[in-house]
């Protein structure tokens, strides 16, 4: 755990809003990117990631400052995105096809570092997957979690992590036309 981050969080817990700024700045790119993957489109992603920071601030006193901030924030963000996806499914105001636009559209600053045509295509393919597949790809490949950490974060057995990840990758290969069929 980064001692500077722990110190900043303690200042946040004392009510210092200025101490929250470096934390938000540090994770903003990752947060907006994660929200894009979780929501399956850039639409709303920036807003969802900002809402998650606001919610984190509101509950910061209940957070253990000795633990890393991002996994906790990420759990809040995943909940917000799940709620938004449920609402979206009920209202059906954002057609899925619209959601699969380029990730850099809609004023969203999310873009891939070291962008190549193949990676861009891969990223767009990820956005077409089912929400639970997008979530597990995000945790494994963007956040670099182990199977045990993913099982804890998603509250599912390790066997389910393994099979979900397997099916997510197969689905991704199908979208990319690389399934060998």
């Amino acid at each position, binding site marked *: 755990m980064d001692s500077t981050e722990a110190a900043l969080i303690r200042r946040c817990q004392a009510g210092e809003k200025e101490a929250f700024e470096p934390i938000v700045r540090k994770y903003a*790119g990752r947060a907006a990117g994660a929200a894009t993957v979780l929501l399956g489109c850039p639409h709303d992603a920036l807003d969802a990631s900002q809402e998650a920071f606001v919610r984190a*601030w509101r509950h910061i006193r209940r957070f253990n400052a000795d633990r890393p901030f991002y996994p906790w924030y990420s759990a809040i963000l995943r909940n917000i995105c799940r709620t938004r996806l449920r609402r979206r499914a009920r209202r059906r105001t954002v057609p899925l096809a619209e959601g699969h636009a380029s990730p850099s559209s809609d004023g969203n*600053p999310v*873009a891939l*570092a070291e962008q190549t045509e193949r990676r861009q295509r891969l990223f767009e393919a990820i956005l077409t997957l089912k929400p639970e597949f997008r979530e597990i790809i995000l945790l494994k490949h963007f956040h670099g979690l182990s199977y045990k950490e993913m099982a804890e974060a998603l509250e599912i057995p390790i066997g389910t992590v*393994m099979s979900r990840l*397997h099916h997510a990758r197969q689905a991704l290969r199908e979208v990319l036309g690389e399934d060998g069929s």
Partner: protein
Amino acid sequence: MSCDQFNQWAGAYLDGELSEADRRRFEQHLATCEVCRREVADLRNLTEDLDMMRFKEPGDEELARYWSGVYNRLERSFGWILLSVGAILTLCYGAFRAIEELIRDPTVSVILKVGVCALIAGLVVLFVSLLRERLVVRKVDRYAKEIER
């Protein structure tokens, strides 16, 4: 085990997540199965690409805009809390005075007075019931547990 079953292990094998015994079994199978070897090679290309993907860090200007969006919401949420508390207190006080006057007014029929009292009592019971339910749900709420982490 069939190739299909071994295939399910391919991802975990590449991620280094198979147990020592399973890894050995898988490698023994790979040594004899061309189809699975090809499958692992294809999957390796995909996972390597996925592992290389990172989000670009936003520039200073974008970060400043982002923080300003968060900060404005923080301030606004405080404003909303004050507004809500103020509105609830004002409404409660206004309702209390209006009911007090209604009950003391001898020209108002008893039925109306009883009706208003029942209405208020009903609202209070419903409010307390909802509040209690909310507190009970909070104890088992997954999101609330995450907040406590």
